[in-house]
């Protein structure tokens, strides 16, 4: 018990010591659905309605009504007069109530179709004070699903790397995890040597990453909650680009122990290695197809970096990308139908999305140094790193490229975002 207490205190220290990301919506979409999220009744440590409205707005699919424009502030169906909301041309209405219980809060909400005057969803949650914010994200997920038919991805997290350059030019690097809206940042690991390539385990409980803390790259795996950490790969040369298999039993990695970078798969239980590629070119950045049967990776075997696909059993890789002279760091959407990657577009490095069935390729970012794209677990958005006014920032863009918001630190660089899988509840 005492041990647990010490750990909790340390996390608390991290929480206060870690500067958070701030969100700015830079591009909104035409055709977003009008929704009114009325401030919830009662009092809570967080503004639940504001969190829900912000989530819905960030998705680009919804246009929440400003609180000041509301004609009434109902908290339950009995208090709702649908004519108020029809007059404001709202399609959907969210009302709710928070009440303090002995040990925490009870949060209830109802979602209505304004035109029909019908309830579409209604739930009640009991939560601790600390979990009010995650519960608000969960409610936003339920609303998103009821209105779009797709699962929401607001109650997820992102992992990313921060860099703070001190006056002497040295960079202090940290691996952090925050909620998908940038709140609740926690430092998982920090170092004065490079840290890169974070990768979530499929259960969202562990991160694999590359750290140069021993002045050479090695792959580590760390439990997000306990901080428990172990070194997984420390062969001569590059130990890089970890990617968990969908069943969580294997890790695809890049090793150059035999002279140049090739893709390997490590069985996490036995630590046994099998080589997947054997080629004198650079092979790196493996990413698993969601069915676990194949991987895509970056290779310059054709003269410049392009994406190739190979069976998880090995064999001859097939080239996947043909458009453009530079395509790298591909990863799949969770339905396996699309790949997102870094693509060189003229002189600019941007984020591309390849539809694997139609072969349609679309650029969804507009920077010149965009990198590290990853899909939200529902495929609706892509988070990536970019440069803005000389600083490293993150952007999340809707997968159709129509809406975008920015996540930035007040000071320093942020890079290499990876969206978590859905957490197992």
């Amino acid at each position: 018990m005492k041990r647990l207490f010490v750990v909790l205190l340390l996390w608390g220290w991290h929480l206060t010591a870690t500067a958070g990301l701030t969100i700015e919506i830079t591009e909104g979409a035409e055709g977003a659905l009008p929704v009114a999220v009325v401030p919830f009744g009662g009092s809570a440590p967080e503004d639940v309605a504001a969190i829900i409205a912000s989530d819905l707005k960030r998705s680009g699919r919804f246009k929440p009504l400003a609180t000041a424009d509301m004609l009434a502030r109902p908290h339950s169906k009995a208090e709702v007069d649908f004519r108020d909301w029809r007059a404001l041309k709202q399609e959907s209405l969210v009302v709710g109530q928070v009440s303090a219980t002995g040990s925490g809060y009870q949060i209830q909400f109802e979602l209505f179709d304004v035109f029909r005057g019908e309830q579409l969803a209604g739930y009640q949650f009991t939560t601790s004070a600390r979990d009010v914010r995650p519960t608000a994200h969960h409610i936003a997920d339920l609303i998103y699903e009821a209105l779009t038919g797709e699962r929401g991805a607001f109650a997820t997290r992102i992992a990313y790397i921060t860099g703070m350059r001190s006056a002497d030019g040295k960079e202090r690097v940290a691996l952090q995890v925050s909620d998908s809206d940038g709140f609740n940042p926690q430092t998982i690991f920090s170092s004065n040597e490079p840290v890169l390539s974070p990768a979530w385990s499929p259960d969202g409980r562990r991160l694999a990453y590359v750290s140069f803390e021993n002045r050479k790259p090695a792959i580590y795996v760390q439990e997000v909650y306990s901080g428990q950490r172990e070194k997984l790969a420390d062969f001569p040369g590059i130990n890089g680009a970890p990617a968990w298999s969908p069943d969580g039993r294997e890790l695809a990695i890049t090793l150059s122990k035999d002279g140049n970078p090739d893709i390997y798969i490590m069985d996490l239980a036995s630590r046994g290695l099998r080589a997947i590629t054997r080629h004198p070119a650079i092979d790196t950045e493996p990413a698993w197809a969601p069915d676990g049967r194949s991987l895509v990776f970056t290779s310059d075997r054709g003269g410049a970096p392009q994406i190739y696909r190979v069976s998880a059993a090995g064999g001859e890789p097939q080239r996947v990308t043909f458009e453009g002279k530079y395509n790298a760091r591909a990863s799949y959407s969770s339905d396996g139908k699309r790949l997102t990657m870094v693509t060189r577009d003229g002189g600019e490095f941007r984020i591309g999305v390849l539809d694997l069935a139609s072969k349609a390729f679309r650029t969804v970012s507009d920077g010149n140094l965009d990198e590290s794209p990853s899909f939200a677990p529902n495929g609706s958005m892509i988070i990536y790193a970019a440069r803005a006014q000389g600083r490293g920032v993150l952007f999340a863009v809707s997968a159709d490229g129509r809406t975008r918001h920015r996540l930035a630190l007040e000071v320093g660089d942020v890079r290499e975002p990876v969206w978590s899988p859905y957490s197992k509840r």
Partner: protein
Amino acid sequence: MSTRKLAWAALAFSALLFGGCSSMQSSEEAPVGDATGAAGTAGARGSRWAGGALDDPSSPLSKRVVYFEYDSAEIVPESRDILRAHGGYLSSNRSTNITIEGHCDERGSREYNLALGERRAQTVKRQLEAEGVSGGQLSIISYGEERPADPGHSESAWAENRRGVLVY
């Protein structure tokens, strides 16, 4: 479990500061090493070093950085004299070991750049071996784009950052 220990370990890392690079050897006129050299040094030249001390700013040895073209690991002509000088020195000083760092500019993906940086370091290593240096004297490491010499985002910063560095 040892969650407490690990949590403290994580904190301890945050306190770790690594010092600068290893100490420089100030060499007098170094004795000529055994002239046979390592295997695969058919192209070896100049086993006797007479080009000045390692820490002499007027010596070609004071240049420790070679630069590369975009997405390339080829040794450019301007780098040949620098590598020839270091090759001569190292083949005459068999007890001196160096680390060759490979670096990239920030463009493109990080892991690809880690691989490209390693390829650059290997090219420098092969060039030094061709000058007669034993492979055992040379270790390589790639930092990819993680350690820019110039943290800027211009063409000139990128040119500074696409480099191989000889660390004595």
